[in-house]
């Protein structure tokens, strides 16, 4: 388990991280969310030792993250970077060796990871000769080649076409199933909601929302009830309810209900107003929770 405990970092007058605290666990995908400049990249760089936090501790499996521990981390930075004139296989092998993998094992690992990300046919080509999507795959192969226990990916889905997104999502899912802890940042909230079990939202260097998606949704104040009538409902039926309809026309009403509110009251009022086509209780989407969290 990865534990981020009270991590703070100041650059000059900018408080980039302000007491960040959250955990990420094996076999689960954790999405790191936040507006631009919220501190996501700084947080990831702290994990990889590229930035030294001013305060706080990072722990992996209960022990402080040291240089030796970091050798078991894989990292894909937001600013993609490879040696343009170096062939794919040679490059992946080089990074395996830099991570301390012995020569023979590095060659085997290189072949395996190139196969896994689907680059076998271009293994001997120079990186600069590859398409953007394939360069992204090389970057991922470099992050994976030493079989890391923790995978830290900064915006891994940025710039991928829908097929590429699906492939990468499947790969991350299978890596987690094999036991890896995966932490990645993204602005694509629907994707994160679809893929991740856990989310962490950062804003102005602070963690404003962290936990499993299910628990966050269950605990949210913003749950919705959608009511759709088969015909026009009795006018003013909503007046007797204390909830605000957030959207709606005459046949459709959406209401925000709190966790302590009684749904039976709403249902009875709706049934009394006319024949129902649909009566739906919905948790908030990740996007809604995100917007609410960063607007606080």
């Amino acid at each position: 388990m990865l534990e981020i405990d009270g991590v703070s970092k100041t650059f000059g007058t900018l408080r980039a991280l302000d007491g960040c605290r959250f955990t990420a666990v094996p076999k689960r995908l954790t999405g790191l969310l936040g507006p631009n400049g919220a501190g996501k990249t700084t947080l990831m760089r702290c994990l990889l030792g590229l930035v030294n936090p001013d305060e706080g501790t990072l722990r992996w499996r209960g022990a402080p993250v040291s240089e030796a521990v970091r050798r078991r981390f894989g990292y894909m930075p937001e600013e993609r970077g490879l040696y343009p004139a170096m062939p794919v296989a040679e490059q992946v092998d080089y990074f395996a060796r830099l991570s301390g993998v012995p020569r023979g094992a590095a060659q085997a690992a290189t072949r395996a990871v190139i196969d896994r990300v689907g680059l076998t046919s271009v293994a001997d080509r120079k990186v600069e000769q590859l398409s953007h999507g394939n360069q992204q795959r090389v970057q991922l192969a470099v992050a994976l080649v030493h079989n890391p226990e923790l995978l830290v990916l900064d915006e891994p889905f940025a710039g991928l076409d829908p097929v590429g997104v699906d492939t990468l999502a499947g790969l991350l899912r299978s890596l987690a199933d094999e036991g890896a802890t995966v932490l990645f940042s993204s602005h694509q909230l629907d994707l994160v909601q679809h893929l991740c079990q856990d989310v962490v939202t950062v804003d102005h260097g602070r963690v404003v929302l962290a936990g499993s998606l299910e628990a966050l949704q269950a605990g949210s104040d913003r749950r919705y009830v959608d009511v759709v009538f088969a015909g026009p409902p009795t006018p003013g039926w909503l007046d007797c309810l204390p909830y605000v309809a957030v959207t709606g026309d005459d046949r459709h009403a959406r209401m925000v209900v709190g966790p302590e509110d009684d749904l039976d009251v709403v249902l009875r009022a709706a049934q009394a107003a006319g024949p129902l086509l649909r009566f739906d209780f919905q948790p908030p989407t990740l996007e809604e929770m995100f917007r609410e969290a960063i607007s606080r």
Partner: protein
Amino acid sequence: MSAPLSAIWVIARRDLSTRARSKAFRISSAVMLASVILGIVIPTVVLRGTTTYTVAVVGAADEPLPPLVAAQAKAAGVMVTVREVSDRAAGVALVDAGTAIAAVAPGEVIWKNAPNTRLAPVLDAALARVAIGQRAQTLGLTPAQLGSLVAPAAPTVTRLHPAPDKGPQTVIALVGMILLFVALNFYGAYVLTGVVEEKSSRVVEVLLARVRPAQLLAGKVLGIGLLGIGQFLALAVVGAVTLRIVKPANLPAGAVPLIGVVVLWFVLGYTFYSIVYGALGSLASRTEDAQTATAPLSAVMAVAYFGAFTAIGKPDAWWVTAGSLFPPTAPTFMPLRAGLTHVPAWQMGLAVLLMALAIIGMVQAGGRLYRGAVLHTGGRLRLRQAWHQTH
């Protein structure tokens, strides 16, 4: 091998092999090898290239004239082949045919059209010796008396400020110093472009997630340095083999120890300057900024280079001694001093010690700059900013 060392070695190997495979390196190596070979062969051939003159001499070998011509030519350093002919007509025929440049008969020198300015005094002197011999006989002098009469005076030579002939040493010291300066710039530029390329291609962040900045810089300096030393050794071996084959006449003594001094100062100077190059290169985000970032270094190197040129005239001046001890200028000043004058062992030792200390200091300072600057993107970073950047 421990993990940090093995990472340095992995980095060094990549930098070495990438550079060694590059077209630029192969071409420059070929050019340098060719220059060394031609630089030794051409002067040797040119210096040796004095023509051998064939001179027809009337008379057999037991007569005085032929051996006298040969002896006079040898004394004057003119290569002459003496061809004995039986009479004047045979000599004239050889000169007319162009087989001989001149013919010498008793009391006469025969030229085809004009006397050769180098050869004429030699032949005249030979005839004069014959004439002197004949007059001595007329006067009744014994050969011993004649010998003492014409014996050279052998005057005592007094040199008010004696100094050995430093011509050849000056050339070697100068060539060594220039080669060293070129090599320092060449390999320093490799380190510089290596650092800037890694920064501009952003691969540096991927690297630094695995290794420390100091390891990255050390690996780069080591790999490119080994390449440079390898190239230097190849040049030295080719140079030595060429010297053995063509055997130049006036190879000065002390050339080989001097090559050793040049190699020593290449290693020290390269280590020192390449770390500075790497650290300053990390301030630039793009190749275009690299020149600006290393401008202060170029200025220091120019001082070291032109200062060394000025030092050729007065290698014993106090400021030359100071320059040969001061680490940034020592790599060019010290080999020059070693070639031109006597350098006390303690000064050589002190210079190496100071340089070693400077390198250690530069590793600390350069490593800090590199660490502060290498992850900074978007324009050139100022020295002061990088120094105070704490990641």
